[in-house]
């Protein structure tokens, strides 16, 4: 997931899902997913996670929305179920984002229980 933040823009700014995380499970198998942000130290099983991208002492908050309950579609081609839905940086966080040479990063761990 990646975003180029424009501090002068109005409204929330979307994070691009470059490659979605997907899961294949046995057909009709109920699967629960939780997410944890290394940057913010926050974990969530609700489908919405408050994460934090960091670079040194600077940070930017963001929101990640994901599917926390999915149903397996079985295996084979085309049976992947996408986990990530969307991500965004709120306007207030973008407006105050500090410019640095380099980038802010976070790692989100998705835990899939089935």
């Amino acid at each position, binding site marked *: 997931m990646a975003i180029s*933040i424009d501090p002068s823009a109005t409204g929330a700014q979307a994070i691009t899902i470059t490659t979605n995380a997907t899961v294949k499970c*046995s057909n009709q198998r109920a699967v629960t997913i939780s997410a944890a942000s290394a940057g913010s130290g926050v974990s969530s099983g609700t489908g919405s996670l408050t994460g934090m991208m960091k670079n040194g002492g600077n940070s930017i908050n963001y929101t990640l929305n994901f599917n926390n309950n999915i149903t397996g579609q079985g295996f084979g081609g085309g049976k992947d179920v996408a986990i990530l839905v969307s991500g965004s940086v709120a306007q207030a966080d973008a407006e105050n984002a500090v410019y640095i040479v380099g980038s802010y990063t976070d790692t*989100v761990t998705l835990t*899939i229980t*089935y």
Partner: protein
Amino acid sequence: MKKILVVAAVEMMVMALAGGVFAAPPLDVQVGVNAAVTNKCAVTSPGALNITIDPELTVDQPFTPLEPVAHCTKTKGGMDASITAESTNAGTTSNTGTLVGSLDSGAGNPIPYTFTFNPTVVGNGFGAGAPVAFGIGGSVASGDAQVAEYGSYTDTVTLTLAY
């Protein structure tokens, strides 16, 4: 009797497989999230300096400044944007914070003036309450004011932010 035993054995195998699925440990997948911040400044409204010169006064006469409203990205360590000012009429340029400009009526007899500004500004980010401070001001020296001819004079100063 043999047929009944075979069916029972198959049922036990299915139950065993189902039990194996229930015991599966959770899977962890890691997703990277990356962001870059654009460094920029934006002026959202222009300003103007106005002055009514009284030739009778014996002191320098200041302009009434109206600051441009501008915002710049916050920068790590307070990295600055530098400002250069240029007077259209005088053709002068300055990045020191003081510019000598020229007010012109179009009928000759221009009035020299001094334009002051902050040569560097620090970005405070965008949004309400965080504009950069241009520190704009200026004045007409008393000697120039005393000999100024009656009329309306103008000049345009272009401020260039480099960041």
